[in-house]
């Protein structure tokens, strides 16, 4: 699984199907504070990410 973090760095992860929320928590993100794009499409935190997916995590900037 290719994970693109908010700072644009990339992390490769060998994983079976996993809840997006679990992935986020393992990586130290609160689902309330980020959005997740799976293979170019916005998904909810209770969607499933598979090993061949690209997961982009977008942090929601405060203020504005």
């Amino acid at each position: 699984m290719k994970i693109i973090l908010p700072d644009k760095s990339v992390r490769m992860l060998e994983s079976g199907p996993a809840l997006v929320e679990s992935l986020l928590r393992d990586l130290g993100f609160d689902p309330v504070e980020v959005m997740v794009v799976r293979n170019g499409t916005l998904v909810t935190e209770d969607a499933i990410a598979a090993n061949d997916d690209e997961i982009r995590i977008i942090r929601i900037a405060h203020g504005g």
Partner: protein
Amino acid sequence: MGTVPSATPRCSLCNEPAVFHDRVRGRHLCRDHFTSDIEARVLDTIRSRNLIVPGDHVAIALSGGKDSTALLMILARLLPSLGDVPLSAVTIDEGIHGYREDTVRSADDLVKRFGLPHTTVSFPDLFGDTLDAFLEGRETEACSVCGILRRKALNVAAERAGATKLATGHNLDDEAQSVFMNVLRGDLPRLLRDPGSDSQGMFIPRIKPLMFVSEKEIAVYLMLHGAWADLPECPYAVHALRGEVRRMLATLESKHPGTMLHLMESREKIAMWCAGTPQEEPVRECRQCGDPCSGEVCQLCQLKKRLGMIHRS
């Protein structure tokens, strides 16, 4: 045997792929139902509280950040339902290096796209110098200093735009944080203050149409409508009590969905119980500048003296 979760949860209303999990109301929404839900809730907030009435001219306090961008897009879409009141945008350039340049550019692009009148007021124009300059050596006071100066600048800009209402992009997270902070400070008058009526006719009333829309919902709305921009956060925000309260509330909201909404409901119940009980000093005129204030001298004049701004403007 437990249910195997779907790779993509479906909309609770139409079975299309869900883009948002509304944990407070216990449902999933697709792009179209999410969009119509947000817009309907904003319209309901406006109507139920009479935030915008026929004859109004609404100026949007447009920083170019995510909240005010979403506010402009949503109000522009709702205008036909609101009696086609005139809409314009006002932007304050405080002079925050490495932050405000991007958002001001974003605000410019947006008003051009929507063809709205745009009034910009900068701190150097109004107060003689940038916020960065005023804050040298006093960065920990940033939010209180900026708040006082911004309040004045927004009022000047809204007056120049000819507005009768000033709409700000404060969202549910902002409002819940404010409720919590005012409780922590024991500041009942501020907890109960209604921004739409505290001016007693002396300031342009402020309205917050997004007060029941969460920060995440705003981000998702922008993402779905091609308006998401990865903009920086204000560099001074790290010094604020609000930052600590925000992290605490985000954790609570994550564990107990609805926490922020419940805080807002608490505020409304307290306000209802306190109705008719005077909580604040009557509004008077500042003896130095004539602006409305609760004491002899307004906060702005006190701040100007403290920062030595009188010699700069």
